[in-house]
C-alpha cells in the first residue's frame, strides 16, 4: 500500500510566524501536488512539482520536492490569518496511470 505521511497533523500559530509542513513516503512519485481545502469545499490546487530537487515559490509559500521524489515540504513565511485551512499533499504514481494518493492533511490555524 502506498502511503503519504504528512506532519504535523495540526498546527496553531500566531500571525507573522513561519511554518513548515512535511510530506514523506517510501514510494517514488512522478509528481507531487499540494492542495488547500476550506470547510465545505473541495481541495484546490496550489502547486505541482515534477523534478527531483525542484523548488517553487508562490508568494509567501515555498514548495520543495525531494531529490529522490519521495518527499516534499511546504514552507510559509510570515503566516497570515487568510492562510488558515487544510493543506494536503498528493503524490501521483506514474506507473499506475497517474493514480493520485493524498496525505492525511495538516490543519493550519493562524491567529491574529
Amino acid at each position: 500500500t502506498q502511503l503519504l505521511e504528512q506532519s504535523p497533523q495540526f498546527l496553531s500559530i500566531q500571525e507573522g510566524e513561519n511554518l513548515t509542513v512535511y510530506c514523506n513516503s517510501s514510494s517514488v512519485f512522478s509528481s507531487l501536488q499540494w492542495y488547500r481545502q476550506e470547510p465545505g469545499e473541495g481541495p484546490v490546487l496550489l502547486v505541482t512539482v515534477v523534478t527531483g530537487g525542484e523548488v517553487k515559490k508562490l508568494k509567501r509559500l515555498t514548495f520543495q520536492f525531494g531529490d529522490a521524489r519521495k518527499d516534499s515540504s511546504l514552507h510559509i513565511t510570515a503566516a497570515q490569518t487568510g492562510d488558515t485551512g487544510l493543506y494536503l499533499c498528493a503524490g501521483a504514481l506514474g506507473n499506475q496511470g497517474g493514480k493520485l494518493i493524498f496525505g492525511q492533511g495538516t490543519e493550519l490555524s493562524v491567529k491574529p
Partner: protein
Amino acid sequence: DARVTQTPRHKVTEMGQEVTMRCQPILGHNTVFWYRQTMMQGLELLAYFRNRAPLDDSGMPKDRFSAEMPDATLATLKIQPSEPRDSAVYFCASRGGGNTGELFFGEGSRLTVL
C-alpha cells in the same frame, strides 16, 4: 465557468438503504476520481476512470460499493446496502490532459447513515 458538479450535496439515510451519488466532470476531462474524506482516514481514493474505463477500484469495498461511468458526462457511485461506517464526505474530481495535471474537485456529497 467550468466546474465539477456533484449531487446530492447532503444525504441522510438509514442503514440498509441504497445511496447513489452523481458527478458531472468538467467537459473534456478524461479522468475521473472518487474519494472519500473522513476525519480519521483523510482523503481515501475509492476508484478512478480514464476515458470511462475503470483503472483502479481497489480502494472500494467491493461487496457494497460500485462505481460506473455510463457516459463521458456522468459518473456514479452507489452504495448498497449502506452502513453507518459509510458516513463521510464523498468527492468527485476530474482531470484533463496528462498524469501531472490538476485535479478539479466538486463540492462533495456529505453522507450520513443512521
